[in-house]
């Protein structure tokens, strides 16, 4: 698919702030199933941008606004082409014991220190164990939305998995965090993915939709028969599916804090009011035929 993405974030401060420093992780990644044709970031008030690639390979754009200001807008535009990844092979549990698997898994198999107490997880461990790693992945994509209500506002950006389990509701970020822990407990390496998700227009008319930044995950599945490289397979526990060509990936990490879309600090006692909007437009000629 071929998308035009616009991601606009506006901050209104209730008094003057200075030294507003931010790090953006918003640029769609370049992967085997995704290509970026065009990418622009514009900041108001205008300022210089610094770019680098972080430890996990995500492009980071940093900027600072030293002068006093009362509002700030971050305007991101990207054009991306995605293709559908092949459906993953089904490999046995034994395959994740291979040295090549551990090698590729690296730190995505390790606890991160954000895990809730074991007692809270044990019931899920039982349920999540399926006939194969892939089956477990698919099962979790059903199990989590079955068990927890998707309800914006019940959790916040710093909420833990324990908050989700105890509260019974959360958003995509919480679902993914729980799924990651459960997968790793089964010996399956898994990583957090930040990105944009295209949702087909309800009315079928317009090709431009208002969406949000989204979170899903990638699990490392062994190649079938124990031969070949293990592959990272995207899965979206919020939407009960494996990742599709509608999922536009920005980057990955161990958890949310490794890939936050916007992270910033400023000097001044002001409260900030945030307005963020992501809009995605399908550019493929095929889509108009769909209507």
């Amino acid at each position, binding site marked *: 698919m071929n998308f035009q993405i616009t991601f606009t974030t506006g901050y209104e401060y209730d008094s003057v702030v200075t030294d507003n*420093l931010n790090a953006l992780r918003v640029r769609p990644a370049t992967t085997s199933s995704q290509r970026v044709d065009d990418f622009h970031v514009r900041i108001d008030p205008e300022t210089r941008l*610094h770019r680098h690639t972080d430890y996990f390979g995500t492009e980071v754009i940093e900027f600072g606004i030293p002068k006093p200001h009362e509002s700030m807008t971050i305007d991101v535009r990207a054009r991306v082409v995605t293709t559908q990844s092949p459906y993953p092979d089904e490999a046995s549990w034994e395959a994740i014991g291979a040295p090549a698997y551990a090698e590729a898994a690296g*730190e995505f198999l390790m606890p991160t220190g954000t895990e809730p107490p074991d007692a809270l997880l044990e019931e899920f461990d039982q349920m999540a164990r399926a006939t194969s790693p892939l089956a477990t992945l698919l099962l979790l994509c059903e199990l989590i939305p079955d068990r927890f209500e998707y309800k914006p506002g019940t959790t916040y950006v710093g909420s833990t998995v324990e908050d989700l389990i105890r509260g019974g509701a959360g958003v995509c970020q919480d679902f993914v965090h729980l799924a990651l822990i459960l997968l790793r407990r089964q010996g399956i390496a898994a990583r957090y993915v930040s990105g944009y998700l295209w949702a087909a227009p309800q009315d079928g008319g317009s090709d431009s939709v208002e969406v949000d930044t989204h979170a899903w995950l990638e699990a490392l599945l062994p190649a079938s028969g124990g031969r070949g490289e293990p592959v990272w397979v995207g899965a979206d526990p919020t939407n009960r599916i494996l990742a599709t060509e509608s999922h536009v990936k920005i980057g990955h990490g161990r958890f949310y804090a490794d890939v936050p879309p916007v992270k*910033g*600090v400023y000097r001044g006692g002001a409260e900030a009011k945030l307005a963020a909007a992501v809009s995605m437009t399908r550019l493929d000629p095929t889509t108009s035929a769909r209507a």
Partner: protein
Amino acid sequence: MTEPATVHDPSDYRPTPGYHDEVYLPDGSPRDYARPMAEELERMGPEQLAAAGRRRDAIFMQQGITFDATGEDGPVKDRPFPLDLVPRIMPGEEWTHIKRGLAQRIRALNHFVDDVYHGREIVHAGIVPWNLIVSRSHFARAVHGIRPPGGVYTHVAGCDLVRDEEGWKVLEDNVRTPSGISYVLENRVAMTRLVPSLFQSYRVRPVDHYPQLLLAALRAVAPSTDDEATVVVWTPGPLNSAYFEHAFLARQMGVELVEASDLVVRDDVLYMRTTSGLRRVHSVYRRLDDDYVDPLEFRPESLLGVPGLVRAYRAGTVAVANAFGTGVADDKAIYHYVPEMVKFYLGEEPILDNVKTYLLSDPEQLEYVLPRLDQLVIKPTSESGGKGVFIGPSTPADELEALAEVLKVEPQKWIAQEVVKLSTVPTSDLDGTVAARHVDLRPFAVFGETIKIVPGGLTRVAMREGSMIVNSSQGGGSKDTWVLEDGEDSDRAEPPDVVRQELPALPDMRYGGWSDQEQQQQQTSTERGRAHACPHRA
């Protein structure tokens, strides 16, 4: 030779059998190099030593050379730093061995840090497992791929050494923000003031040039083309237990002591706020952990740091000592691999050995350790300053049982070590009598263009009989460490020919009479100057 000289009464001092005493031989006679000191101690007697001790406390309180300790009744603030007035003496040859071993070790650790954040060659060579490295709490993803100016990461190192009957060994590597150097310098000054007579028969290598070495190193790595590099010392603030040292070093180097709120990053350059506006900073000696340096890159909830500092660091506009991410090299699980690093990176045999260490993340080693907890020392891998350490032989059985459960759950966070039989040095009690007490040694190295190590270092001493706990926060004391200038040190530059100085003829002193300076002669009277009838100056 008549009776062997010993302190006060020969029956008073007995080296503990089975432990190496650095002053007395097992038969109670002093080692050759220590004999003059032992004799002087004997001459002084306990009263003089105790009196000097009281003067010491008064001076330290007056000068604010204090620290906060944890006493039996909770925290105790502002106690005079417990300097024991009996020095620890080390022959030059012994020091040369230590110095070479440390320089070698620090070079290897520096290579390791660079490797961890770049090529990972030591991982590919199968020597250190990558999973172990990434699971260290001080592994810093934020500085992946950044190479600091000069390729130096471990600008300041303070490794802990111990000596047993076999010789010197490394107990711990401290390459984050080791503290204690200010006490080394203050101890030496205090010793010359309080017990100058002990120095009489010795030439002791000086230590007071440390701030110059540090400043030179900080300037050497500063990304500044001229000599005008601005250097600062960054302290977390007066509440930090080592604030005294931060202020001391800033004062001795003549640089600003800054806190986070004094610093700001604009674009990708670090500045400090001064009364005349922003002033660029080129080199930062920081005395706080990575977690608190930049909320954008490390702990986000910490607003103590300087947002954007890592960006400036990445851009190469500022040098930070020690470099971000060096903590991965002083983790206690990584310590285990240092001798292998020496071989791998330098192609040399390690000069200083490790203490025998067990990595509990290895199931076989865990298996070996669990039934022997009461004979080993168990340490958490990422702590320093003796925090969370269990000394098996002196830990109650029920605590060890609880510990065993913890080890089984999170073995990767712990190591076990053999108990080292720390050497002893005579140490004075409150009443001035001396007895054998266990010591360790923390030498301080500075890595700028080359590695330089201040002779000696901080000797820490356990003040209770038989105790091996030397941390000052847990009731340990310290000693002035004397490296003797006894000739044999091939590393030293050749001593220049002694220059026989011609003294200039100065005008005579005048004493307020009406003297003509040509006529004023050496006076011998006790009277006031004006009592001397001299002709009025014409």
